[in-house]
Each structure stands twice: as C-alpha cells, then as structure tokens.
C-alpha cells in the first residue's frame, strides 16, 4: 500500500472568470483524519466536488494509491473507493423510500442484484448496517417521515456501507445533536483503525478538536496553512483561514430593563414540566440544548406556528397567543428560522426582495411597490451587516452561504421589533460572518428583547447576556454570561444534573 491514499497536485478550477481553485496540493494518508477549514467561498465544496467526480479539474493531477485518478462521474469515484457525504442532506437520501432501501440503494443500482427486490433479505442486511452504526431505526420506516438528524445519519451510514477507502464528510454534524455527533466520531475512530483516509470539513471548533489529526486551512482557493503534530495549533489554523488573527469576543453583560416576554407555566410537550421565563428589554438570551430539547418547539410556539400544551404568554404585559406567523409579526415578534435554504431564502429573488419580503407593505403605497424605498433599506442593511455583494440587485444565489445568512438576519433586523427570535443564526456560517452577525445583534439589542437558539455553547458565550439550558422541554439551568462554568452547562445540556439544583 502506498503511503498516500490520495494525492492532489496543482488542482485548478474556474467557473467563468471566477477562479475558485488556484493550485491545490494536498495529501490524504490512510488511517488519518484531515480536517479542511475555510471561510464560506474559500473553495472547499468545489474541491470536494472534484474529488468525488461531480466537477472535473481544469488542471493539475490526482492520484489514488499511486494510480492516476480522474473520475468523470460520481459513480466512478465510488467504484474506486472515494465516497462522499454531501453537506446537503437531501442529496443523500430518497425521502419516499424506507430506511432499508435507502441504506442499500447501491445494491439496488447494482446490475448483478437481480430483477426482483428481496424484501426480507434487504431488511436484514439493512438492520445489520444500522446496528454497526449504532442506529436505532425501524428499517421499514419511510425516510421522509424522519427528522433531519436521522436522515443525516442514514446518509452517513450508507456511505459507510460502501466500504470506502477515502471518505469525505462535508459538515456531517451540522444537524446532529451532541450525542449523535459523538456516535459519529466513535465510528470515525473505528474507520481510522481500518486504514481509511478521511477528509472532514467543518466549521465547528468542538468537532475539529475531537477528530483532527491534521488541519488544512484554505483561503481564496489556495492552501493557506497546514498543521499537524502533537499539539495542533487551532488558532494558527483559524488565522491562516481568515488571513488575520481573531480577537476574542468580549460580551459586556447587561441585565435588561422591564420584561418584554413572560412565559407563565408554559408546557411545551405533553409530559414535560412547565417553563417560566422572562426576557427583558435590551437583553440577549441564548437558549441552548440538544436536538429534541424543545428549542425548535419553543421557537414555533412563540411565532404562532404551534400551540403550547398549557400555560400562557405575555408580551409587554398584554396576553399573547399568536395563531399564525402573521399574528406574531403584527405583535412585533419576529422569527429568523433555522435552515435558511428551506425556511428562508427565496431563490428566485434578488437581495432586495429577499430582505424586504416580510414588510413589503411598508415599502408600498396602495399595494404598489416603491422599488427605491426597498433599495434604500437594503443598502442600509448591506452596509451595517457587511454583506459582500455587488449591489442590492444581485440574485441571492450568487452570494456565499454566510452572506445569504446575513440577508436572512437582516430581513428581521430591518424593522423595529418587540422580540427578535433567532433560531440557529450561525448555522453553516464561517467564523467571520458569525462575528459580523453577532456584533450587529448586540449593537442593536437595546431596542428590543432578543432570544437566540443555538446548539453550540461557544456561540451562546459569544452573543448572550444570559444562557438558558433546555432539556426535554424544561429549563435545567440559567446562567448570566459572566465567568461561566462551561463544564456545568455541558452537563446540564446532556441532562446529567437534576433540575432541582437550579436557582
């Protein structure tokens, strides 16, 4: 076996005039996890697409175990042992089929597998794969009915079932809870022992610390730094990725003034204990917790998408019980939902129409839109959020992920609100954009109450005045963001402390 599983030399790729990759040299070794870091738009995804046969490189050379490697299609790449789990989950699963068929899709497309589907044999095989992954799923469940995390795990399980020699994971944990991510990491450890070369792409510092044997930073289509050895230089990696150092965020903690939103005995789930919580004017509260802890449920209840099991809400002392998103917006409660691709972005629209969408009536007279007024508001938000674009008329699809997210956040910061709710505002966003968004949220916090739902504690520490921990629909911890005991929050998140200890 060659010392290198995969070797890239001088890979170049351009889309029209846009030179996305400008000479990438990279070596992946068997039994090693290489983490690839890079800001949005650095060229990570393009590199992955070349490796897995979606795009072809314009120049340069690739070798796989010493042999020349130039896949012309994804199936050729897979046949040679290069397996990829893409960032977008829906590329990885077929929602209308059951779990077993999804896990064994490759077997179905294989010509030697016969004409008829042997249902029982398939279910048994699928159960084996699922068990090896530690997946506890009914093989006959329809994938479309499952949650995002389960779908992601299925996509990963399928990649594993292909017995890869080189495994590429593009942000595999973006919709996994800590426990599920941990399961994935243990599995990666096992794969490593069998000599698989793994390329792991992530923004999450906690993931990177856990899995990286080596970190490669990309910037502007080039390798900006490579770090390996006993003590990995994380800071150096981030600096190389951004082109400049990163200052730590200093949060000047405020306690807020009068309460804006009060939850009185609100029960999120059938069996859960009531939640009492106050969010005050001028305060940023971060709510953190695992998947299924009730974060999404609480956001939906606040925005009128779902109704609580019991309990009441008050907004500025008035009874508040929104039935629809419209009710909530009218009451001045705005929600910037998570997963911008399916819940936020209007792909056919430009930046201006995306940004002003909820408040078009404020940019219209007698229903006729005033494009100049729309543009003016958009230009303001482009300037204050630092959205990188050529102008307010750019199509939203031409922006990088981080800048799209800025538009989504800007959409709800463009007008005054009583309560701004942001659900995972930093999802799939590089650290620079994350800081821009966070700074802007804090700068404008005086004018309203702000509630942020985040799964990452790092993100909560960066933005919040107060951190609230949810577990199974109840509040298990509340901490002012001052000399926070991170280990304690971690314990609360995973449900290891009894709720009684909360003061």
């Amino acid at each position: 076996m060659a010392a290198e599983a995969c070797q890239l030399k001088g890979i170049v790729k351009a889309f029209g005039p846009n030179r996305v990759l400008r000479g990438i040299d990279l070596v992946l070794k068997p039994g090693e996890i290489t983490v690839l870091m890079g800001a949005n738009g650095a060229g990570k995804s393009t590199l992955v697409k070349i490796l897995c046969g979606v795009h072809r490189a314009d120049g340069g050379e690739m070798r796989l175990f010493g042999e020349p490697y130039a896949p012309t299609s994804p199936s050729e790449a897979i046949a040679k042992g290069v397996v990829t789990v893409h960032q977008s989950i829906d590329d990885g699963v077929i929602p209308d089929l059951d779990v077993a068929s999804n896990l064994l899709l490759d077997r179905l497309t294989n010509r030697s597998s016969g004409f008829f589907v042997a249902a029982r044999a398939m279910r048994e095989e699928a159960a084996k794969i699922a068990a090896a992954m530690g997946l506890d799923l009914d093989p006959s469940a329809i994938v479309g009915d499952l949650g995002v995390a389960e779908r992601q795990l299925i996509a990963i399980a399928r990649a594993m079932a292909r017995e890869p020699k080189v495994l590429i994971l593009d942000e595999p944990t973006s919709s996994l809870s800590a426990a599920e991510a941990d399961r994935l990491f243990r599995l990666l450890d096992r794969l490593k022992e069998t000599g698989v070369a793994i390329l792991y792409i992530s923004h999450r510092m906690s993931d990177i610390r856990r899995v990286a044997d080596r970190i490669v930073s990309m910037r502007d289509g080039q390798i900006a730094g490579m770090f390996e050895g006993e003590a990995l230089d994380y800071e150096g990696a981030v600096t190389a990725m951004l082109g400049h150092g990163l200052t730590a965020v200093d949060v000047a903690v405020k306690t807020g003034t009068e309460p804006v939103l009060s939850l009185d005995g609100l029960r999120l789930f059938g069996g859960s204990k009531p939640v009492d919580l106050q969010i005050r004017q001028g305060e940023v509260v971060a709510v953190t917790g695992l998947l299924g802890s009730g974060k999404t449920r609480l956001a939906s209840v606040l925005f009128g998408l779902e109704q609580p099991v019991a309990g009441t809400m008050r907004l500025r002392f008035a009874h508040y019980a929104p039935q629809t998103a419209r009710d909530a917006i009218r009451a001045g409660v705005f929600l910037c939902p998570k997963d911008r691709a399916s819940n936020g972005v209007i792909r056919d629209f430009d930046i201006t129409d995306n940004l002003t969408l909820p408040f078009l009536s404020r940019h219209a007279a007698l229903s006729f839109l005033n494009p100049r007024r729309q543009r003016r508001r958009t230009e303001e938000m482009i300037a204050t959020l630092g959205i990188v674009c050529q102008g307010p008329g750019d199509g939203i699809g031409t922006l990088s992920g981080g800048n799209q997210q800025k538009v989504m956040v800007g959409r709800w910061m463009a007008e005054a609100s009583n309560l701004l709710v942001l659900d995972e505002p930093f999802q799939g966003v590089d650290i620079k954009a994350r800081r821009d968004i966070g700074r802007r949220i804090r700068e404008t916090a005086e004018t309203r109450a702000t509630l942020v739902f985040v799964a990452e504690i790092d993100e909560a520490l960066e933005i919040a005045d107060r951190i609230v921990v949810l577990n199974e629909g109840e509040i298990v911890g509340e901490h002012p963001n001052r000399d926070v005991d991170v280990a304690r929050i971690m314990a609360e998140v995973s449900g290891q402390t009894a709720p009684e200890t909360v003061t």
Partner: protein
Amino acid sequence: MTEVDAGRAPLRAGKGWMYYAIRYGFLCLLIGLLIFFAIFAPGFAGPRSAVFIFQSVAITGILALGVTCTLVVGGFDLSIGSVATSALMLSAYVMVVMEQSAFVAVMACLVMGAVVGAINGFLIVKMRVPDLLATLGMMFLLIGLQRIPTEGRSISTGMTLPSGETADGVFSPAFLWIGRHRFDLVLEDLIPVPVVLFLLVGVLVWVFLELTRHGRLMYAIGSNERAAGLAGTPVARYKVLAYMISGVLASVGGILLAARLGRGDIASGNNLLLDSVAAALIGFAVLGAAKPNAFGTAIGALFVGILLQGLTMMNAPYYTQDFVKGAVLVIALMFTFALSHRRGGGGH
C-alpha cells in the same frame, strides 16, 4: 471588507454573449420571423393582417394570462379550457333558454369562473389535493356538467329543449358586440373588442404581478412556499386568489368565444387548454425570465399566432399547425431550462 471577502465577489463585470443570447434571443427570433414573413408571404405586412393575428390569439392569450397567475404561485390550472367552454354554454343557456339579458349572461359566467377557481383553490389548499390532479378532476367534471342541461346538444335559438318546448331566446346584440364589434383606429373598423380586452387584461395582470406587493408575494410563494409563510405571507389566501383569477379570466375567454360564434356550440374550444398553457410556458423564455411572467405570456401567444398566420399565408396546410406549436414549445423550453441553468454556473 477583508481580503477573504473581496476574493469572493463574483466576477461578472463583463457580460458575455451568453447573457444577451438568453435575454434577447427569443425576441430576436420573433423579429426575424416577422421580417421573413414580411418578405416572403405576400399580404403579411399590413395592419389588417396584424389585427388578424391579434384576434386569433386574443382568447388563448387571456386564458394564458390566467394560467400564468397559477404558475406564479407554483401551481397549475388544467381546468381553464373547460371553464371557458362552460362559460360558452352557460351564456348561451342564460340568453337562449332562460331569455335573460346580456348583462345577466356575462355576470353569470364571471361568477361561475370565480366559483370554480375558489373550489380549485379549496381542493388544493384545504384538501391538499396536488394542483394537477385537483384541476384535472375539475376539468373532467365541467366537461360533463356543461352537457347535462341540454342533453349533450348545442344551444341555438329555436332548438327543442328536453322538456319538449322550443327555446325562444336570442343572443342579444349587446352580447354579440363583445365578440364582433370593431373600433376605428386610423382605418375604419380595425380593432375588434376581444383584442382590446386581451391587451387590457395583459397590462392589468402585468401590473399586478410586477408592480404590486401582492404579485411579489405570489412569486415568493412559488419559489419557496415555506419561507414565504414564515415571513408572514397568507399563503393559502394568495393561492386561492390565483386560482380565482385563472377561473375568471377563463370565463372571460369563454364569453368572447360565445359572442364570436353566436351559439352555444358544444364542440368549440377543444384546443384552448393546450394552446394557452403553451403560450404561458413559451413565455418563460422571453427576456430570459425562466419563470412565469405576464409579458412573456403575451409574447408567447403572439409568437404562435404570427408563426401560424405566416405559414398559412405561405400555404402550409392546416393540419401542420399543432406540429408547429409543439416544436415552438419544445424549443422555448430548451432555451429556458438549458441556458438559464448554465447561467447559474457551477457555484462552489
């Protein structure tokens, strides 16, 4: 702005020929076609011939503008053809059998169109029937329904009713005026009422979709329904509205058809659905819009009209017409989807 971000800005300063090909290709083709026919088809270039083209596409065009509204919200209305023929039969029934005035007949048709649209919307929004299936069902239902009152026969003055009586009513002159009157414009008796209505409806739908916030929200629904709903858009209400607009415009088309024919002809309007859907889809290619739009729909209807008129004047047999329409549609769709996809680029 950091170095990282500066490097990201898409480099599109120089717009390549591809940009212009996508944007103006279809309009150039249209102009080329006009020049070609003007030279090689004697009698093609002239106001009378132009008006004839407009008149031939007026009814299809109005229906196509309605279907455009449903395409905008991401839906589809297959029932428009049958709504139009139902309006044709209904107006004849109201005037000839029930002996009512033109006004009553027109109002009855418009109300019928709106109600059918509302039912379509109800099926799609509340009953969650997929749009194609709901409107297909409605199409079937209406084709059958319009035959029941007269036991499947056409309606004209003097016909024998199922009860044995004779229908004494007549198509009122005011009603026929809608279909047959011509306004003077430079030349005497030049512009027929249906053409004026077509242009009027075209402008109204264009203004509604492009310039008002309602239109913008409808496009938002068509592009990402979930996101539009989460931005506070009353999605259900706009979808029902789109189907009602489609129903009403289809009934307008039916009224014009009745007024032109002067009888409740059971066999008319068979081609209306396909022709108008084709016009709306051809409209995707106009100005590189790659999405339903009112201007494109009107141009799409005219394009087909010009091509057929020119070919007819060059003695192409009538039975080649559907082939020509189909070919235009397929080419326009290729234009739209292949080219606009390439414009999107590989991304990163």
